[in-house]
């Protein structure tokens, strides 16, 4: 075991998300990263009843060039601590982890995590020269072969899964179809037209074997979370949602290439950490929020976190298991595939709203424990409880 379980458990249930906010989600030519992020932040402040001057930790994230210093300047605040993590979409849970440690160790009292994304309006493709980043090894190492985009890395992994286990694109379509059914029940979801397995199978390939509907949306929006300590959380407007467990496991070896082992040698250690800290197991999870930049992420997360065995996700996800009312509801908001591509941030909002029982027609019955999982070379997970 690579972690000290006793010390990890000292953070269990000590920090809570007390405020969540989401801006409008869609395509907004009149907005930018900052304005969308700030809209969300104002909603989050109102959600918990805190004042902006209560915020003493300010972390800012997004796929563009959003700056925490500029954000603080716009907001007119001087927090104790600010920053961002330049690791792209997988930064969501790592930033919550960081906020939890700052709060638990007393450096901060109320931390805001603010996310702004105007990728659609800015024309960001997550591939090609717009993805060129000299600081990121994989992003441009093999451009001359025409290899670009995170979607291609996932396409390689989908092919490996299909070839190794005999799984199929048709089975994978269930992820997109199920999440679309959930999005239809979500007022802020962007994609609400019904989607069938046949629609998925007949849609164009983007990077084969992945079809259009295996891919996340690219859109604009903002999200904000406000966290504080357990004791402070009790005095705020809404029911706190506590962080029971946090897991993290990185994979740097061979990271210039798509991961051919589907992260099987590393992601299970993230699972071990999060379940050890939380003191619960897979059987206790009432709903899963899985980072779904591509549908295959869901299979990889389910297998590497022990919800099913290696190679079995294709069968495991059939027959309504992931649907609301099923055994293990997954991405009840519609996820990146159908709700909005906010790089994991709206997954946290959904976890909080499910545990507060605010989700109306898409409410998971008696939701007590919700888990977030993100696969990647930076793998992470959070287990929340009400």
């Amino acid at each position, binding site marked *: 075991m690579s972690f000290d379980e006793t010390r990890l458990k000292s953070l269990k249930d000590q920090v809570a998300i007390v405020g969540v906010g989401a801006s409008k989600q869609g395509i907004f030519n009149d907005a930018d990263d900052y304005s969308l992020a700030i809209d969300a932040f104002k909603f989050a402040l109102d959600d918990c009843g805190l004042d902006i001057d209560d915020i003493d930790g300010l972390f800012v994230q997004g796929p563009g060039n959003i700056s925490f210093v500029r954000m603080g300047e716009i907001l007119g605040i001087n927090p104790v601590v600010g920053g961002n993590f330049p690791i792209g979409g997988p930064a969501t849970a790592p930033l919550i982890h960081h906020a939890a440690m700052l709060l638990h160790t007393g450096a901060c009292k109320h931390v805001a995590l603010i996310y702004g994304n105007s990728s659609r309006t800015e024309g960001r*493709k997550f*591939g*090609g*020269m717009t*993805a060129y980043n*000299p600081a990121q090894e994989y992003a*441009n*190492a*093999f*451009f*001359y*072969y*025409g*290899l*670009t*985009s995170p979607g*291609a890395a996932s*396409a*390689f*992994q989908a*092919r*490996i899964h299909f*070839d190794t286990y005999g799984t199929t694109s048709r089975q994978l379509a269930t992820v997109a179809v199920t999440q679309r059914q959930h999005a239809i029940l979500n007022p802020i979801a962007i994609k609400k037209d019904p989607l069938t397995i046949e629609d998925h199978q007949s849609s*164009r*390939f*983007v*990077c*084969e*074997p992945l079809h259009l509907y295996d891919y996340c949306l690219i859109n604009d929006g903002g999200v904000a979370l406000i966290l504080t300590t357990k004791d402070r959380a009790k005095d705020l407007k809404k029911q706190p949602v506590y962080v029971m467990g946090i897991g993290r496991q990185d994979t740097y*070896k061979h990271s*210039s*290439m*798509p991961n*051919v082992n589907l992260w099987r040698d590393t992601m299970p250690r993230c699972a071990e950490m999060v379940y050890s800290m939380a003191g619960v197991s897979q059987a206790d999870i009432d709903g899963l929020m899985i980072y779904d930049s591509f549908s295959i992420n869901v299979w990889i997360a389910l297998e590497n976190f022990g919800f099913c065995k290696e190679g079995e996700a294709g069968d495991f996800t059939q027959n309504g298991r992931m649907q609301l009312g099923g055994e293990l509801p997954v991405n009840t908001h519609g996820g990146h595939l159908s709700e909005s591509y906010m790089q994991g941030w709206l997954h946290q909002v959904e976890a909080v709203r499910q545990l507060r029982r605010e989700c109306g027609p898409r409410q998971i019955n008696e939701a007590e424990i919700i888990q977030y999982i993100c696969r990647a070379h930076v793998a992470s997970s959070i287990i929340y409880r009400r």
Partner: protein
Amino acid sequence: MDTHVKPRPIKSSSDSVYWDYLKKHELRLQQCNGCQIFRFPASPLCPECHSKDHAWQRVKGTGSVFSWVVFHKCYFPSFAKDVPYNVAMIQLDEGPIVISNIINIENSSIKQGLRVEVVFDDIDETLTIPRFTPTLQS
């Protein structure tokens, strides 16, 4: 940058030797003199034993397709005439996995395990890119 020119490799101090050998139509990878492990992409030291001592070992240039994808979306305007084009992960017989394109084959005929061998694509006077073609087997 003119986006209609295909992107070129960004050569580093670690891999300039790799590209120099390719100009001579030789595929050579770093092999650690400490633990004999091959590594790709090129790096200043062995990730297994941290020895800097290595040889640029000529590899046979034969291997098998490990996984492959086909780009239907055109992310680079310079690839507009190429879509749909394949990109493959090829496991060389010496062990390391490299990225390349498989040429002289229909995309629909590529299979996991397909035997391939290197061919050298001379782009211009300063750049040769290794690609792979199906091995003709008797």
